């Protein structure tokens, strides 16, 4: 009586993914103010730099590419902590694990939503930050491209850390610790793409490497996350 016919298995996967994705978006948009938070964090740190170091144009110009990349990285990192935490606390993570749908796919919808909610807005905000830090005009395009691809990798890689630490009480900082070393290559190539461009060199090489990292993260991370979640729930 109860079992579903096998032929709608495909359509049920699509349904599951769209419902999951829609849920993430609803949760995010329910608190509209929160959507802006990573952005505001981004902006605030950009304000701290001149306050703490120096407001001079020549100094800031030199810092701009690397600094914006480092701050984007931190903003992504901070927003990652909540990725699975609330699902873990209220039991919906268990329900996801018990879904007949493949877990890596479900996880991917969450990561996608996270990227749309943090990476994209961060990227869109960079022109403003660039202006405030006197980024040379040639830097804007490579900065935005590298951030677009780079934040994708960072959401993917970071979600592994979020999954590994979801069972711990004070995830926040331990998460940073786990994830940061993995972010190093992304940061190096991202920042250097911008630096090269500012100095008038080609930066396609860096972008190519960033893309390659993104693709491998896209293929591997969902499985790692799924595995990590199964372990975290198993207590």
């Amino acid at each position, binding site marked *: *009586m*109860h*079992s*579903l016919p096998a032929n*709608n*298995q495909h*359509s*049920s*996967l699509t*349904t*599951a993914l*769209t*419902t*999951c994705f829609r*849920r993430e978006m*609803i*949760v995010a948009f*329910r*608190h509209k103010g929160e959507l802006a938070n990573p952005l505001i964090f981004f902006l605030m740190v950009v304000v701290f730099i001149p306050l703490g170091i120096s407001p001079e144009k020549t100094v800031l110009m030199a810092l701009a590419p690397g600094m914006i990349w480092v701050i984007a990285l931190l903003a992504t990192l901070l927003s990652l902590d909540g990725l699975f935490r*609330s*699902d873990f*606390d*209220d*039991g*919906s*993570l*268990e*329900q*996801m*694990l*018990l*879904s*007949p*749908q493949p877990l890596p796919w*479900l996880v991917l919808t969450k990561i996608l939503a996270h990227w749309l909610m943090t990476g994209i807005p961060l990227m869109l905000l960079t022109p403003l930050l660039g202006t405030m830090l006197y980024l040379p005009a040639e830097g804007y395009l490579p900065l935005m491209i590298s951030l677009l691809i780079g934040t994708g990798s960072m959401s993917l890689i970071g979600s592994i850390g979020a999954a590994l630490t979801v069972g711990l009480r004070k995830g926040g900082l331990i998460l940073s610790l786990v994830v940061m070393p993995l972010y190093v290559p992304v940061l190096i190539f991202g920042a250097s793409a911008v630096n090269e461009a500012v100095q008038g060199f080609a930066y396609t090489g860096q972008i190519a490497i960033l893309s390659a990292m993104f693709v491998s993260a896209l293929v591997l991370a969902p499985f790692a996350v799924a595995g990590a979640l199964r372990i975290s*729930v*198993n*207590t």
Partner: protein
Amino acid sequence: MLQLNGFTCVRDGEPLFVPLDTVINAGDVVQIAGPNGAGKTTLLRSLCGLFDSCEGEILWRGKPIVGAKHDFLMQLLYLGHHPGVKKSLTARENLAWFAGVNGETGSLDVESALAKVGLAGYADIPCHQMSAGQHRRVGLARLHFDASPLWVLDEPFTAIDKQGVERLEAKIQEHAAMGGTVILTTHQALSLSHYRTIELVKYTEAFHEVRHA
């Protein structure tokens, strides 16, 4: 349907309870009983594959669950201590997610499911504005549209008022009558006409099983 062979859960290297050997068939209602800390929650989670430090084996339709994971999960509905109801979503949004994630593709009659758990008119209220019992009822509403035959319910009566308990018991009985299976824990007395109790006994004591009615 579900067969436990010498099955027990292990914590800190020690089995929690005397290994269970039992068969749970379609149409059965099984209460897992035992005092606080006996291992009921741990057992239910192991059945669902959420806890895997166990001894013995569980067969699902004659096969170990590991081999028939997808098939098993298709047939399973688990409601734990935390029912998976997200506080910032409304009841409707929560139920839509449950349905979607469990692979239901058809349209969903949220109103009637909610009405059946006494939450008529609450479909569009965010769950953080609900009382403890109302919050749990949202989770219980799943029982009214999910087609899975195997229900694993960990203390489903928590925070539910008297009338709610009666309705839930009726629903459980109906499910069993239609050939479904229910495995549940509770510390309250059940007033079902047909059910079986499996008493978990500390590993050092003897094992016994009581059959009612």
